[in-house]
């Protein structure tokens, strides 16, 4: 196995690309009780249209997530229970871009790893079980649709993007999942669950060579074809819609404010855009920025204020969210601060401080095996290594952040999504 040292952050990563195309990454952690394994495919909620063996498929919203739910079924029963009975805490998630299955366990780690690799790579769906799941997922959709924060974020995506599938809920809708059959699930599994489209990331008190041996024992020998994905034509830079509002049961208005950016290219450039994007947000409206202090002082925002950069295939954006009696004023305040930074630049000592702080936060984040393994899986699918950030940090300049703010934080690129309380007696 290839070994990479990241001395600055005290990490060692082993990597092997196996004969079947699977990339395995291992972070040995001899002092820990529990090991963590993350087995992921480069396939998420937004990969609805794809081409396999020369044929284009248009699948309903929510398939990747539905598939995730059904993968735990095995011919013998249910892998969730097998893992749990071995003392492991298994789970899975589907994001816009990936689907990942994981467990952690202190005991019987290799047995559990065998179970994980096996149930994810061997599909077993019956009409009866697929139909039954519709009720459970329908309930889950009902539950997230009751969540005002989620709704507000999804509305923001719909306002920023005209057609990119990031607009569509990962779980789909009750209507879209009604179309899902065992055949749909088998087709999507075949298209995306090939070892060559997947990665296994493990952290814990484990021997890297043993991890590869277990993977070799369980998984198919040969790499298969991988589907090509399509997200439609390139989005325009401007937001599709500048304001979107909805009424729900909330105690105070909540908002998600976003700015549409340029989709990142792959590899290290993607990591760099993410790091620059995060630092740009810190100096613009982060906890240490003058604007944050001002908005907090004026009661425009409260502690629930959060912000982040996101970017992947075909999209990138800044988003800030929270509760506010006057979300429009938050939008104007940020626009004003971006204009000021455009004129005066970012204060040099603020920049240095924020960079130091963000670096420390990233390093502290490595305490979590989940963070490390999920981060590495996503980074690998994007063409870089998660821990590359440590070496890159020093080279990022204030000018890069200023330029990103100047080009992204503009009125045309901005959209505001607000969820307000229902008014009593009001007729909608």
């Amino acid at each position, binding site marked *: 196995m290839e070994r990479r040292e990241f001395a600055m952050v005290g990490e060692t990563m082993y990597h092997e690309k196996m004969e079947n195309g699977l990339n395995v990454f291992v972070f040995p952690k001899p002092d820990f*009780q529990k090991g963590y394994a993350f087995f992921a495919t480069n396939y998420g909620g937004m990969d609805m249209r794809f081409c396999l063996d020369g044929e284009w498929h248009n699948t309903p919203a929510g398939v990747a997530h539905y598939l995730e739910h059904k993968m735990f079924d095995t011919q013998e029963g249910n892998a969730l*229970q097998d893992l749990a009975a071995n003392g492991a*805490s298994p789970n899975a998630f589907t994001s816009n871009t990936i689907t990942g299955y994981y467990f952690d366990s202190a005991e019987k780690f290799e047995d559990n790893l065998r179970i994980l690799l096996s149930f994810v790579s061997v599909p077993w769906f019956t009409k009866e079980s697929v139909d039954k799941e519709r009720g459970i997922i329908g309930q889950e959709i*009902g539950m997230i649709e009751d969540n*005002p924060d989620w709704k507000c974020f999804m509305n923001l995506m719909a306002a920023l993007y005209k057609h990119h599938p990031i607009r569509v809920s990962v779980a789909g809708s009750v209507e879209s999942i009604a179309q899902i059959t065992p055949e749909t699930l088998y087709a999507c599994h075949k298209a995306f669950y090939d070892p060559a489209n997947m990665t296994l990331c493990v952290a814990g008190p484990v021997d890297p060579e043993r991890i590869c041996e277990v993977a070799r024992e369980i998984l198919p020998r040969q790499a298969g074809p991988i589907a090509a994905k399509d997200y439609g034509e390139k989005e325009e830079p401007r937001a599709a819609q500048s304001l979107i509002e909805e009424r729900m049961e909330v105690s105070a208005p909540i908002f998600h404010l976003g700015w549409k950016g340029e989709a990142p290219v792959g590899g290290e450039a993607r990591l760099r855009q993410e790091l620059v994007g995060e630092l740009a947000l810190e100096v613009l409206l982060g906890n240490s920025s003058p604007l944050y202090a001002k908005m*907090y002082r004026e*009661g425009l925002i409260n502690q629930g204020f959060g912000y982040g950069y996101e970017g992947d295939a075909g999209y990138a954006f800044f988003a800030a969210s929270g509760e506010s009696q006057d979300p429009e004023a938050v939008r104007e305040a940020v626009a004003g601060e971006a204009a000021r930074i455009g004129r005066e630049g970012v204060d040099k000592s603020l920049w240095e401080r924020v960079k130091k702080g963000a*670096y420390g936060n990233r390093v502290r984040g490595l305490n979590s095996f989940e963070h490390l393994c999920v981060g590495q899986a996503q980074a690998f699918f994007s063409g870089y290594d998660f821990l590359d950030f440590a070496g890159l940090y020093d080279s990022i300049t204030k000018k890069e952040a200023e330029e990103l703010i100047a080009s992204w934080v503009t009125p045309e690129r901005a959209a505001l999504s607000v969820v307000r309380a229902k008014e009593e007696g009001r007729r909608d």
Partner: protein
Amino acid sequence: MSQVTHRELFPGVWLRTVHTNKFKSSYLSLTLLTPLSRETAGANALIPEVLRQGTSVHPDMEALSAALDELYGGAIEPMVRKRGETQCVGFAASFLDDAYALKGENILEPAAGLLCELLLKPYTEKGVFSSEYTAREKANLIDRIRAQINDKRIYATRRLAQEMCKYEAFGADKLGDEESVAAVTPESLWERYQELLRTARVEVYYSGSAEPDQVAEVLARALDRLPVNEDRIDPGCDVRMTAGPEPIVTEEVMDVSQGKLALGFRTGGLTCWEEEYPALYMCVAVFGGTTLSKLFMNVREKLSLCYYASATLEKMKGLVLVSSGIEFDKYQTARDEILDQLEAVKRGEIEDWELEGSRRILIGACMAILDDQGRQEEFWLGQTAAGLEEEPKELAARLERVTRKQVAAVAQRLELDAIYFLKGKGA
């Protein structure tokens, strides 16, 4: 390996250290433990929020954020927690461990200094808290209290506990209530703060690579302005032995698409202080604490009655709280089925895989505490509040010995005491 020490720095002021090299960060917390009561909960919850706004040295958020950034982006969060009938207020902090500072800087000492500065050197105006900070944090806390309604799952369990323990301190929320927070003034809050500093039991926690003696020295120095009091209060917890003659039933209507059903049981006086505690812990796990549990496997998976159904244990108070998400018209069926599952546990109808699976999960969870600084701090705060010194590994060893018979015996002591149902409009 990690070593745990617990020592008294000053009367009623304790330091727990966990010496370990496993993590990238050091974890520090500073907690005042005080009896939970409806009268003081709101003001107590407000204190760390107001303190976090500024100190005499770093008078506002900007200055504090700058100081934290200089310490490699350390985080200090105001904390309000409830352990049994103890309200725990203070701060939890995480800093980069000294080993990873880019220029070999010492981070622990200034970090501990900043943490204690927040508690002991507040920013004041006219000898009391700033009126601006107080007003703003009051508004924020009231928003948070109101926002508790947003997550219906947590809301339903909270309402259940409120109704069930209406006449006990436990019924008070850790954040207090809107009215009492609204009534706070900078002067009254200052008085409460002085009272807390003088009377509350103080618990300091450190996990990281520094030697325990060095940590004790640093913290004793950082806390030397704390008032000396030989009689700091150790909060207690009132445990009811039986449920009421009939369960209290509460129904609420809201504009929601999914119903929430919560059931509250008394444990017949069983708590974390009893010999049977590991059996009780296992019993709740078998009943509804894991994905192998009867509630998950039968009520959710087999019968598709609930989107989720789970049980949690309030180990100091002796309560078991069941929480579920259901369709409105399934109220009676879901309720009957949940109670039937408990009856099965009472009869000892527990398969080997259920018993052993639950045991492995609980033991796994005990061991996992050692791998996570935040969880470890939570665990030890709970132990401190309960006056227990048992380590996660010792609890794991006791769990190994629990038998099916003991689980059933403990289940037989569970009595339904309250039901809460949240349904949609027109349901």
